[in-house]
């Protein structure tokens, strides 16, 4: 061994001894989770709520583990993706350098692809992106990417089904589509258009609006023109607060005709969205048989923690974090690769089901090595080989009094 390699070996031994490196000791597991957040830059409105969602999940997991006597302690380190793939890649490396065993986030697909190809695939570190673009599926992730957000293709069917549930047979019915100019909106709108026209309905739009505009009145007018039977607006809460107000101001907007996807699903509608824009509107969201009380628990934790209001897809980050904790418990280790290998065992179809309300037992079962099927707040997962959730069950909810109320569940695959 030349001098250089012996030096590197010495450093490696030192880190393990000091407990910074992966630990396989029997006494307990101290897991560090990497939070890759949008803290500055164009998407910084996402950051605070993702941060809070992950922090709540970490605290809740620690409580549950302590109560259940499972020797696992969880902490989190954060890094700023800045809404830019190059910075996100460097941020991901900083998280790994700080000892993170898995990475939750980032929130847009370009960042996820850069991190996957540049770091996590080779090091077999599990990556839990929030972005839904189909592009993420074109890379060979070797089982390291997991998404708790339903893929566009499935959600598009759910949206179409939700509209049919509202307006009946699509034949001769006009559906007006609008979306915010980014991958999430574009993907869903394309699949929804196909699903709706396949059922015989007609489409108006899609109207595409740029989030940084000063006014959205012309766009809103185009959505309500010709008095369509229903509208689908695919947006994030920050722009929808403005777009919703423009819709109401058009004078012939009826929120009851609106159907929105999961980015606008919150247990309580944030204060900055004017109530008439959403009151009576319906939406779709990943569903499971324990949806309602899982969501109630999540909402309690959220309100109790104080701080920022709900934003988009924060339940998904909560679930991703919980799954990572369960996988670490199953693997008895914080080695990223070992943890990644156990993720499918904690969301195995047919294994005993656990949910947020029974996280203690889930941790105990996982620690004892038995496969479990953890069902989260944002639905059941049971990951396919490309890391997308296979379960196609969706909640159809309605906003009543600013609260989300699940009124129906459908299976989007049929």
């Amino acid at each position, binding site marked *: 061994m030349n001098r250089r390699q012996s030096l590197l070996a010495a450093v490696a031994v030192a880190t393990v001894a000091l407990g910074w490196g992966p630990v396989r000791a029997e006494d307990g597991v101290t897991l560090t989770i990497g939070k890759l957040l949008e803290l500055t830059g164009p998407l910084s409105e996402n950051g*605070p709520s993702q941060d809070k969602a992950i922090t709540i999940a970490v605290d809740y997991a620690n409580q549950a583990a302590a109560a259940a006597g499972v020797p696992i302690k969880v902490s989190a380190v954060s890094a700023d993706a800045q809404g830019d793939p190059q910075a996100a890649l460097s941020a991901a490396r900083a998280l790994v350098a700080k000892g993170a065993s898995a990475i939750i986030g980032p929130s847009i697909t370009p960042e996820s692809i850069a991190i996957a190809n540049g770091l996590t695939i080779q090091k077999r570190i599990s990556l839990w992106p929030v972005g839904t673009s189909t592009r993420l599926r074109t890379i060979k992730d070797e089982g390291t990417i997991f998404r708790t957000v339903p893929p566009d293709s499935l959600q598009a069917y759910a949206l179409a089904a939700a509209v049919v549930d509202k307006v009946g047979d699509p034949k001769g019915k006009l559906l007006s589509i609008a979306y915010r100019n980014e991958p999430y909106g574009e993907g869903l709108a394309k699949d929804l258009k196909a699903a709706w026209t396949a059922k015989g309905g007609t489409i108006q739009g899609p109207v595409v609006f740029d989030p*940084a505009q*000063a006014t959205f009145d*012309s766009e809103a*007018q185009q959505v309500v023109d010709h008095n369509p039977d229903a509208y689908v607006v695919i947006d994030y809460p920050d722009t929808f607060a403005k777009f919703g107000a423009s819709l109401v*101001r058009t004078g012939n907007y009826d929120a009851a005709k609106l159907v929105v996807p999961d980015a606008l699903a919150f247990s309580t509608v944030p204060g*900055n969205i004017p109530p008439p824009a959403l009151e009576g509107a319906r939406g779709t969201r990943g569903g499971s048989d324990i949806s309602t009380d899982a969501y109630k628990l999540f909402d309690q934790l959220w309100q109790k923690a104080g701080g920022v209001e709900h*934003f988009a897809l924060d339940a998904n980050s909560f679930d991703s974090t919980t799954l990572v904790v369960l996988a670490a418990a199953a693997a008895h280790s914080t080695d990223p690769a070992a943890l990644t290998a156990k993720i499918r065992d904690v969301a195995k179809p047919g294994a005993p089901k656990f949910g947020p309300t029974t996280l203690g037992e889930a941790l105990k079962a996982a620690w004892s090595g038995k496969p479990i099927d953890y069902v989260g707040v944002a639905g059941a997962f049971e990951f396919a080989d490309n890391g997308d959730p296979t379960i196609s069950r969706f909640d159809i909810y309605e906003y009543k009094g600013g609260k989300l109320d699940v009124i129906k569940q459908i299976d989007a695959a049929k």
Partner: protein
Amino acid sequence: MTIEEGIGAGAQGRAPRPPIEIPAAAWLALTLVFVAVCLVVARGPVAVGQTTLNGLIAAGYFSLGAVGLTLVFGTLRIINFAHGDLLTLGAYLTFGLNAMGAPFWPAAAVAIALTALIALSLDYVIWAPLRRARTSTLQAMLAAIGLAMVIRFTVQFFAGSQVRGVGQDVLSSINIGPLHLGSLQALVLVVGVVASTLVGLGLAFTRLGKQIRALSDNMALAEVAGIDTARAIRVVWIVAGGLAALAGILFAAAVGSVNPNFGFFTLLSLFTAAVLGGIGNAYGALVGGLVIGLAQEWSTLFVNPRWKPVVGFAILIVVLLVLPRGIFGGSRERS
């Protein structure tokens, strides 16, 4: 420019330009009316009427925000990239005071005064030393980019980057026949027009205004001619800072919910309005805002609204190539 030409030019023909170029304004009004008529023929009166109204609202936002920018740019030759963040500062100071119990609009008044004061103190700390060191426009621009980051992220440090509801009534609207516009939006439009006109009149007819215009034409000459440039510069920063805060507060109130990036995101539209109208010309900011606002909203009648931002930039490039000094800037002039 040799001394002889300098004095010659100053004395002979190029006295600080009269505020309104009668022919340019008339020519522009005619074009806009002509285009509007064609649109009505193509898309019907209601659609054109509504988009025109939306265009006027956008013009209100842009001109109110651009007046301060064009004043500073014209007078002190600073490409002030931090101007957008002064809008954010005004809005968030209002939220802060509001949270401490002050009602919204009184809090806004205090916030406007505070922002004007901050803009003034920034001149002492940053812009005056740079002027004394006679650094290049590029140096001042880089300082502005740095200052923009300091303001934006200090606001974000204290207020957080999450979206914040402003709590004003964004839903109430005024109906003119089939057309409608938000009442707060109407306020922005009115204040935008009034502010740029007042600043324009102030520049044209008050003694201080003439001094400021002399400043923008040739700082050295103005000093030689005995103008108290320090006082003029102070007034420029107070007006620019105050108007920026006013624009930020009205923008946030009318839009309904913002996060600390909103000022910076509108900056390029403000630049486009200021440059289009002719730098240093308050009416220019109004006209520039009008042209972009109308063009962008009218474009939605033909093209998917996703192209709206491109329309603004394309117009800026075209007008600058045809009238290198902007609509009111006059014809080609040696740099």
